[in-house]
Structure formats: C-alpha cells, structure tokens
C-alpha cells in the first residue's frame, strides 16, 4: 500500500480554497474562516511529524480544520448564558395550544436539504478544480467564480484573449468529466 506523504509547500495552492469553502459554510464569516484556514495550516505544520500516512493530505487537513471550527464555537460560547437555548412561546399567545405544531419541521420544505446539497456540490467542484493544471484552475476561478471580466484577467496574467478562451475551454471540459464521475 502506498503511504501518503505531506508536502507543506503545496498546501496553500492546492487546498486553501477547498478548506476555505468548508470553513465559510460553517462559520458564515469570511474573515473568521480565513483565520481558521491559516491556523489549520500552522497546526498541520507543527504536527506534521505525527502524520502516519494513512489518510490523504486533504482529509488530514480537513480533520484539523474541523477541530478548529469546534474550538471557535467553544470560544465564542464560553459564557454559559450564551449556550442556553431560549424559546419564546408567548409571542403568539392568541394561538393557544398551537405552539407545538408551529415548531414542527415542514416536511415539504426543500430549503434545508438543498442548502446542504449545494454545500457538498461546492466542495465537489472545488476538489475537481484542484485536479486541473494550476493556470487553468486560476483562469476558471477568476472568470467563473469571481466574475472578473476577460480584459482584466488578460492584463493581470499577461495572456491574450484567445489564449484565455482555450484555457477556459479545457478547464470546462475536464470539469464536466470530473463532475460527471463524482457528482451525478
């Protein structure tokens, strides 16, 4: 069985976006998520010698990030009172006896499920993106996710438009294949 090895120099290029997506969907704040990702990389570096090679690099980093997210919530909930759950039943006091029914989840609501599904989809796309060559990944991300226009990307990366469209085309084709295998 081939052992996995850690390669910290490539971490940020390969996993920063993936970890960031994961963190944002859990803490709902870009700044905090960024800090958590940074801390994850530090922690990974510090405990790199404890890495046994059983898991893939990314799985290992995600496991660290999970702990970081939990620590984050522990920290902001350190005051006991904040952790208390309060429900206000008296708000609609004229609807006597109906309060229990109102708390029941709506079985026809698809909102919750689709939010979870979309989050998983985001991670799936991200992991497909990380398999692309670096330049294609960069161009596709800038164009599709950040929505920067063609001219600006060309200026920034010093390429010409037809070059850009070729890369976009290759990126899209491999993404379609990858998502076809991993998502549908």
């Amino acid at each position, binding site marked *: 069985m081939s052992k996995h090895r850690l390669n910290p120099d490539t971490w940020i*290029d390969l996993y920063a*976006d993936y970890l*960031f997506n994961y963190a944002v969907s859990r803490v709902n704040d*870009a700044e905090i998520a960024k800090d958590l990702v*940074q801390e994850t*990389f*530090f922690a990974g570096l510090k405990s790199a010698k404890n890495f046994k090679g059983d898991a893939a690099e990314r799985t290992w980093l995600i496991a660290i990030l999970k702990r970081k997210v939990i620590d984050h919530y522990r920290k902001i909930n350190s005051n006991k009172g904040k952790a208390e759950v309060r429900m206000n039943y008296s708000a609609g006091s004229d609807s006597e006896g109906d309060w229990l029914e109102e708390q029941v989840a709506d079985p026809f609501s698809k909102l919750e499920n689709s939010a979870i599904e979309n989050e998983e989809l985001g991670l799936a796309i991200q992991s497909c993106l990380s398999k692309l060559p670096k330049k294609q990944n*960069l161009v596709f991300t800038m164009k599709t*996710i*950040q929505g920067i226009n063609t001219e600006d990307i060309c200026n920034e990366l010093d390429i010409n438009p037809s070059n850009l469209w070729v890369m976009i085309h290759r990126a899209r084709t491999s993404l379609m294949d990858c998502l076809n295998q991993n998502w549908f």
Partner: protein
Amino acid sequence: MISCEKAKHLCDKSQYNESSLWERIKLSIHLYTCKVCSKYSKKNSKLTSLCEQANMFNLSEADKAEMKKVFDQENIK
C-alpha cells in the same frame, strides 16, 4: 456555416454572456444541425448553473499570497 471548433468557442463565450447577437444566431444554427456540439452546449450550460448554485467562495490571490508569506516564515523555523 461555422466549424465545430468555432461553435465550441462561441458556446464557451455565451456562458459568460460575452457573445454578440450575431454570434448567438450563428451558434444556434450550428447547434440545430450538429448533435455533438448541442450535447456539449447542454453540458456546458449545466456546468454554469451548477457553479452558480454551489454559491462558492474563494480566497483572493492577495489573501493567498499573504497566507503564503506568513506560512513560509513558520515553515523555515
């Protein structure tokens, strides 16, 4: 008539709303006659809608560069 190469290029461009009206007309005529390209076009639109649906977040290059700088300092130690 446009070639399949050209059609794919126009199709990619349309995904970002960057094709002109005339280009879109040329493309749709081609898609009407060419099965391979129309399949590609369908998959392409699907990918676009998936990317929108996924509501993805990304670190900017500046953020990543900053992260790298701090990280490298730690790495050397």
